[in-house]
C-alpha cells in the first residue's frame, strides 16, 4: 500500500512555496496591506516631499519687506533680494498700510515664510557712515573717525514652522544682499570722492601752462562673480523626492512583510500545523526555504510594483520619473538581498514571539524604528552623532544607502558589495536566532 517518493526535497520545497503563495493570495486584506500600503506610502510621501526637494533647486520662499526707510539703499536692498533665486519678495513702501506689527503677524500666520523691516533713516545712516569712512580713507586717517554710535538694525521675522535649513538660507540671502548693497554704496561713494579730487586737480593743472587733465574714474562694483564654482563630478541624476523615497518606502514595505510572515508562523504553531509537518518525512530546511521563497517572491513583486509607481505613476502626478542608474545586475542582487533580510527578520520575529499579538505589535514598531534609524525618514547626515552611530545597526539603513548609491551616486556592484554582504549576514544571523529559539521551545515541550 502507498507510494512514497524517495528524497524529493525540491518537490516538497516547490509545493511548500506554492502553498504559502496560495495562502497569501486568499488573504485579501493581507495582500492589500503588502502591496497597496507601500505603494500609497511612496505616492503620498513623495508628493508631500516633492517641494522640499525642489526648494533645494530653486523654488522661491515668499517673504515681505516693510520699507520704513524709503531711501536709495533700502530700494537697492529690496531689488537685490528680489533678484536672488531662492526668495520672492513683496515690497511694501513706508506709506503702505502694512507696518512692522502687521508683517510680523502675517509671518506668524504663515502668509509669508519671512518678513524684513527696514528701519526709518537706514539709508541716510549707512550713507553717512560710508561717506565718513571714505573721507577718512582719503585723508589717510585710521578707523578712529567719529562714526555714528548707533547703527541701523534690520528686523527679520521667520515663520516658526520653518526648519533650520530654511531659516539659515533666508538669513544667508539677506546677508548676501546687504553685503552687495553696502559694497556698491562704498564703491559709489569712493568713486564720487575720487572724481571730486580729480576735478580739483584738473582745475589746478588747467591753470598751469601745457597742463593735461586726468580722466574721470569709474569704480562701479561688478556684480558678476570673478570666481566660478564647478562641481567636480557633475551629476546626471538629481536627488529628487522620487529618488529618495521610492527605494526608502519600497524597503519599508519589504520589511513590513515580516509581520504577516511572523503572524502566519505563530498561527501555524498554535494550530499544530508546524508539529504535524515536523512528524512528516520532510526536512525542516525544506519547509523553511519554501516559506522564505514565497515571501521573497512577494518582496520582489512588491519592489517591482513600487518601481513601476516611481517610473510611471509619479511622473503623471507631476514629479520627476525614477531613474534606476545603470547597474541593473547590482540592483537585482540588492533587491534579492534586501528581500532575504526582510524575510529572515520575519522568521526570527515569528520564532521569538510567543503570541500573534506580540509579533503584530513588536514587528511594526521594530520596522518603524529601524526605518527611522536607517535614514528613511530623515537623512542620516542630519542626525545627531549618537543617532548616526546607531544608524549603522539598521538593515534598512544598509539597504537604503545601497539603493541611493545605485540610483543617485551612480555606483556599481563593487560600490554596494559591502552593504549586500551585511544584508546577507543579517539574514543568516536572523535565521540562526530563529533556529535556536525553535530548538529551545521544543526542548521545553
Amino acid at each position, binding site marked *: *500500500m*502507498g*507510494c*512514497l*517518493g*524517495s528524497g*524529493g526535497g525540491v*518537490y*516538497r520545497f516547490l*509545493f*511548500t512555496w506554492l*502553498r504559502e503563495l*496560495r*495562502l497569501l493570495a*486568499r*488573504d485579501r486584506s493581507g495582500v492589500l496591506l503588502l502591496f497597496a500600503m507601500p505603494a500609497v506610502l511612496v505616492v503620498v510621501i513623495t508628493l508631500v516631499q516633492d517641494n522640499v526637494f525642489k526648494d533645494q533647486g530653486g523654488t522661491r520662499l515668499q517673504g515681505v519687506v516693510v520699507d520704513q526707510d524709503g531711501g536709495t539703499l533700502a530700494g537697492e536692498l529690496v531689488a537685490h533680494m528680489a533678484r536672488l533665486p531662492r526668495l520672492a519678495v513683496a515690497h511694501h513702501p513706508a506709506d503702505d498700510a502694512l507696518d512692522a506689527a502687521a508683517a510680523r503677524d502675517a509671518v506668524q500666520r504663515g502668509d509669508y515664510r519671512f518678513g524684513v523691516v527696514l528701519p526709518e533713516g537706514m539709508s541716510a545712516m549707512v550713507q553717512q557712515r560710508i561717506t565718513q569712512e571714505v573721507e577718512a580713507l582719503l585723508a589717510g586717517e585710521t578707523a578712529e573717525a567719529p562714526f555714528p554710535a548707533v547703527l541701523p538694525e534690520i528686523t527679520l521675522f521667520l515663520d516658526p514652522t520653518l526648519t533650520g535649513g530654511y531659516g539659515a538660507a533666508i538669513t544667508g540671502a539677506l546677508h548676501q544682499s546687504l553685503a552687495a548693497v553696502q559694497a556698491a554704496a562704498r564703491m559709489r561713494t569712493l568713486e564720487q570722492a575720487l572724481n571730486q579730487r580729480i576735478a580739483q586737480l584738473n582745475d589746478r593743472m588747467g591753470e598751469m601752462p601745457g597742463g593735461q587733465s586726468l580722466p574721470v574714474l569709474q569704480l562701479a562694483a561688478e556684480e558678476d562673480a570673478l570666481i566660478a564654482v564647478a562641481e567636480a563630478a557633475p551629476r546626471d541624476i538629481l536627488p529628487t523626492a522620487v529618488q529618495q523615497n521610492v527605494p526608502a518606502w519600497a524597503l519599508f514595505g519589504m520589511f513590513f512583510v515580516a509581520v504577516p510572515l511572523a503572524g502566519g508562523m505563530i498561527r501555524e504553531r*498554535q*494550530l*499544530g*500545523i508546524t*508539529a*504535524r*509537518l*515536523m*512528524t*512528516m*518525512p*520532510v*526536512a525542516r530546511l525544506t519547509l523553511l526555504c519554501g516559506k522564505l521563497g514565497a515571501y521573497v517572491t512577494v518582496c520582489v513583486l512588491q519592489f517591482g510594483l513600487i518601481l513601476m509607481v516611481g517610473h510611471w505613476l509619479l511622473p503623471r502626478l507631476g514629479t520627476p520619473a525614477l531613474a534606476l542608474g545603470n547597474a541593473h545586475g547590482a540592483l537585482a542582487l540588492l533587491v534579492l538581498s534586501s528581500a532575504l533580510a526582510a524575510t529572515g527578520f520575519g522568521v526570527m520575529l515569528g520564532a521569538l514571539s510567543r503570541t500573534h499579538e506580540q509579533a503584530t505589535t513588536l514587528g511594526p514598531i521594530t520596522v518603524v524604528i529601524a526605518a527611522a534609524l536607517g535614514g528613511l525618514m530623515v537623512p542620516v547626515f542630519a542626525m545627531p552623532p549618537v543617532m548616526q552611530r546607531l544608524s549603522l545597526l539598521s538593515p534598512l539603513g544598509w539597504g537604503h544607502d545601497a539603493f541611493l548609491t545605485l540610483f543617485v551616486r551612480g555606483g556599481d556592484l563593487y560600490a554596494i558589495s559591502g552593504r549586500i554582504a551585511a544584508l546577507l549576514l543579517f539574514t543568516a544571523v536572523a535565521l540562526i536566532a530563529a533556529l535556536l529559539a525553535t530548538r529551545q521551545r*521544543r*526542548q*521545553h*515541550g
Partner: protein
Amino acid sequence: MNNEGDHNGTVLEVHGLTKVYPGSAAPALDGLDLTVHRGEIVGLLGPNGAGKTTAISIMSTLLRPTAGRLSICGVDGVAHPERVRRHFGVVPQELALFDRLSAAENLTYFGRMYGLRGAALKEGVREGLRLAGLTERADAPVGSFSGGMKRRANLAAGILHRPPLLFLDEPTVGVDAQSRHLIMESLARLRDAGVAMVYTTHYMEEARRLISRVAIIDRGKRLDCGSPAALIAKHAGCADLDDLFLRLTGKQLRDG
C-alpha cells in the same frame, strides 16, 4: 502499507522511554515500555499531565527522549527520525489544518509532504475525503467547516500515505455524536486493514469500544497494561474502565 523489513508484526516497540524537560526535576515520562502489533489499537489513558502527549510526541519523533529506545517498523526512531517518519501518521489533538485552503488542498499538500505524487496522491486524497465523509465539501475552505468536519479532515490528513502505524491524540474531542461515530467507524476499518494505532482519550466508552489493549499511565509511569476486560477482571471491585481508571489514578483533581 509501507513497512521496512520483517519485524514479526511488531510495528512499535518502546523500552524505558524517559523524558525530563530542562529545568524540571520530575520526569514527564518515566521508563515507559510499550509494544504495539499490526492491527492493534493500544489506548494510552491517564489524567491531565500524566505524560500521554509527551509519550506521543516522542514516539512521533517530535521530541527526543532523555533515555530509552524507540523502534518503528524495525527502524531505530531515536537515531533515524527522518527514516521512521514515513512509517506512521499523526492525528494531533489540535486541528492542524490550513483554514484558507480547501479540504482537498490541505490533503494534497500534506500528501506531497509525505512524498506522494501522481495517481497515488490523487487516490490518497480521494480515499481520505471519502473516509472523512467530506467528498461533497472537498473544495470548501476548512475555515468554513464545523468542528466535527475539521476533526474528520484532521484524521484524513494523518492517513493519506496509508501508514502501518497511526498516533491519535484525542481525535474526537469536542465533536458531535455523528462525527464521533464516523471517526470510530473509520478507525475500526483501518484497524481491520492492519493499521496499528496508539490512541489517547479521556472517553472511556470510546476506549472500551475500540481499543484492544489499554496502558494506564500517571505521573509519567505506566501503572498497568492489558485488554480492558482483563484489567477490569484483574482489579477486584471495578465494574468498568471508569472504575479502574479512578482506582489506579485516584480521585484527586488534576488541573495542571
